[in-house]
C-alpha cells in the first residue's frame, strides 16, 4: 500500500514542526514555501523571550528535521488555490502546477503590521523611528542603530500595540507577543547601552507566558526600565536628529512629552493570507483592511480543522501566537491529520 501524502503550506516554525512530525509517522510530506528560505519570521529574530537564547538555535533544530526521506521541500513555490475531489486534495501553484495529496495543512503564518500605516508615528519619515523587527535586525548586525552610540543622554522609547487593539487599523485584537518582546528588547538595549534611559509605553502588560512576568520584573529592578501606562499619540521630528513623542501617563492623569533618540514600534501580527471559498475552490488571497485571521472549526476541540474534510491549519495563520504555542499547535495538528488519515480514509 502506498504511503499517505500530506501537503504542508508554509515552511515557518509551524510548517517545519508539522512536516517533521508527520514524516516521523510515515507520512509523505510535500512542504511548500514561497520564499527561498525556511523558518519564516523566526529566521529574522535575534534572541527569544523569555530565556534570551539565540533564535538561531531553535531554527537550526527545526531545520535539521527537514533532512528526512519522507519530506520534500518545494521552495519558491506559491500556492494559489486548492480543491478536494473524491477525498483527494489538489493544490495549484501560481505557475499552474498541480499537486495531489490526501490532506492539506495550512501553516501560512502571519505578516507584520506595516508600521507606516500608523502615519502619526512617522515610520518611514523619521529615521529614528524603527520597528521591533528592525531592532532584531540591528541586534543581528544587519542594520545600524539610528543614533550615534556616544550620544548622551540617550533616550529610547518602545511603543506597544502598534497595529493591534486599534480599530483605526482594522485590528481590534491583541497581538499577544509584543509586550514581552518589548521587555526583551528593552533589556537588550540596556545591556548594549547601560546609560540609556528606556521607556515602554503600554496599555496593559500582557505577560501571559511562563517566565514572562519574571522578565518584566527583571526589566524593572535590574535594568530600571520605565513603564508608562499610556498609548503613544504621535511622534514628530525634533532638533538634533531626534523625535518628540506625546502620550498620557494615565496613572498620573497627565499628558507626557519626551524627546527620544530612537522610537521602537512594537508591530503586531496580521494574517499573511485569507482563504476565500468560491464554489469548490479555496483561494489564497492577501488580506485587506479589517480582515481577521483564518477561523478553525471551533476554538476548542476542532481548533486545527477547517470546515472541510481533510483541510487542517496550524500556527499563527489562526491568530497571534508565541513560538511555543505555534510549535505545540503544529504537533497537535499533525496528530489530528494522522487520526484523519487512519480513520477517515
Amino acid at each position, binding site marked *: 500500500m502506498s504511503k499517505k501524502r500530506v501537503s504542508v503550506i508554509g515552511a515557518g516554525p509551524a510548517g517545519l514542526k508539522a512536516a517533521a512530525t508527520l514524516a516521523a509517522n510515515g507520512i509523505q510530506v510535500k512542504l511548500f514555501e514561497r520564499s527561498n528560505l525556511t523558518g519564516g519570521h523566526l529566521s529574522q529574530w535575534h534572541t527569544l523571550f523569555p530565556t534570551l537564547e539565540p533564535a538561531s538555535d531553535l531554527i537550526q533544530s527545526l531545520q535539521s528535521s527537514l533532512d528526512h526521506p519522507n519530506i520534500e521541500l518545494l521552495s519558491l513555490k506559491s500556492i494559489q488555490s486548492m480543491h478536494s475531489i473524491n477525498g483527494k486534495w489538489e493544490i495549484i501553484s501560481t505557475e499552474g502546477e498541480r499537486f495531489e495529496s490526501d490532506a492539506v495543512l495550512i501553516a501560512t503564518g502571519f505578516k507584520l503590521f506595516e508600521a507606516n500605516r500608523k502615519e502619526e508615528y512617522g515610520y518611514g519619515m523619521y529615521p529614528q523611528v524603527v520597528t521591533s523587527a528592525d531592532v532584531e535586525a540591528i541586534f543581528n548586525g544587519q542594520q545600524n542603530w539610528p543614533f550615534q552610540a556616544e550620544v548622551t543622554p540617550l533616550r529610547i522609547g518602545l511603543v506597544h*500595540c502598534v497595529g493591534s*487593539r486599534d480599530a483605526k487599523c482594522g485590528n481590534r485584537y491583541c497581538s499577544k507577543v509584543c509586550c514581552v518582546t518589548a521587555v526583551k528588547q528593552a533589556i537588550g538595549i540596556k545591556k548594549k547601552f547601560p546609560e540609556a534611559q528606556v521607556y515602554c509605553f503600554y496599555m496593559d502588560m500582557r505577560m501571559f507566558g511562563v517566565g514572562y512576568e519574571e522578565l518584566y520584573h527583571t526589566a524593572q529592578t535590574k535594568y530600571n526600565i520605565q513603564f508608562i501606562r499610556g*498609548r503613544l499619540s504621535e511622534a514628530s521630528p525634533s532638533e538634533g536628529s531626534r523625535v518628540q513623542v506625546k502620550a498620557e501617563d494615565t496613572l498620573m492623569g497627565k499628558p507626557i512629552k519626551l524627546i527620544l533618540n530612537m522610537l521602537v514600534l512594537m508591530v503586531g501580527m496580521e494574517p499573511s493570507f485569507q482563504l476565500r471559498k468560491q464554489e469548490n475552490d479555496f483561494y489564497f488571497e492577501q488580506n485587506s483592511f479589517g480582515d481577521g485571521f483564518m477561523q478553525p472549526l471551533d476554538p476548542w476541540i476542532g481548533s486545527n480543522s477547517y470546515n472541510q474534510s481533510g483541510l487542517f491549519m496550524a500556527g499563527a495563520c489562526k491568530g497571534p501566537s508565541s513560538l511555543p504555542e505555534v510549535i505545540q499547535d503544529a504537533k497537535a495538528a499533525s496528530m489530528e491529520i494522522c487520526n484523519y488519515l487512519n480513520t477517515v480514509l
Partner: protein
Amino acid sequence: MSSLYAQLQSDIRFQEGLTACMNCGVCTAICPAAAYYDYDPREICQEVQSQDEQTLIHLLKSDTIWMCGQCLSCKTRCPRDNTPGYIISALRTLSQQTGYFAHSRMGRQQLRIKRTVGESILKEGYCVHPKLLVPAEHPEQGPVWQWALDHGKELFAQLGSNYYEEGEGGVRKIDDQTLGELNAIFSETGGLDFFDRIEEGMKNRPAAEENQDSLF
C-alpha cells in the same frame, strides 16, 4: 424623568462618541485643553461609561466639561473609534437643559456666550462680525484692529467687502426676511427655548454661588 445616562444616550453625538473606552490616553496626550487646564478627556470617558447617576450629576455640575476646546483632535487618534469631543458636546447640552451648568463657574459663562454669539446669530445672521469684536474686550486684536474699525466702511470697500450694506459680499447686512427665517428655524428646532433655559438656569442658580462671579 429618565436617568441622565438614558438622556445622554438619546443624543446621537453620544451614540457616535462613546463605544467602549479602554483608557489608553491618546486623546489626552494631544488635547490642547489638557495642555492648559487640569483636564483629562480619558477620565471623562471613564466617568461617563460608569453610567452612575451621581457621577454624572457631579460631572454636569463641574467646570471640567467646559474645558474642552472642540478641536476634535481626539477623534483622529482614538483606537476604539470614540470621540471624547462629541461626548463633551452631549454633556454640555444636557448640563444646560437640566440647569446644572449654573453650578459651576465655567458653566455660568454660557450666559455671556448666549448673549453675545447666540444673539448675534439672530440679530445679524453671523456668529461673529467686526463690530462684535470690541477692542476694549479684545485687546489681543491689537492696534491694527482699532485702525481697521476706525476706517471700517472705506477699508472694507477697498478689500472688496460690503460693510454692513445690503446686497452680496462679505460682512453684508443680512436682509430682514432671512433673519426671520433664521428666527423661525431657532423657534422650530428648540433653539429659542434653549436660550431661555440658559437665562432661567442662571436665575435659579444656587444662592451660595450667586456672588462668586459677575455676569459680565
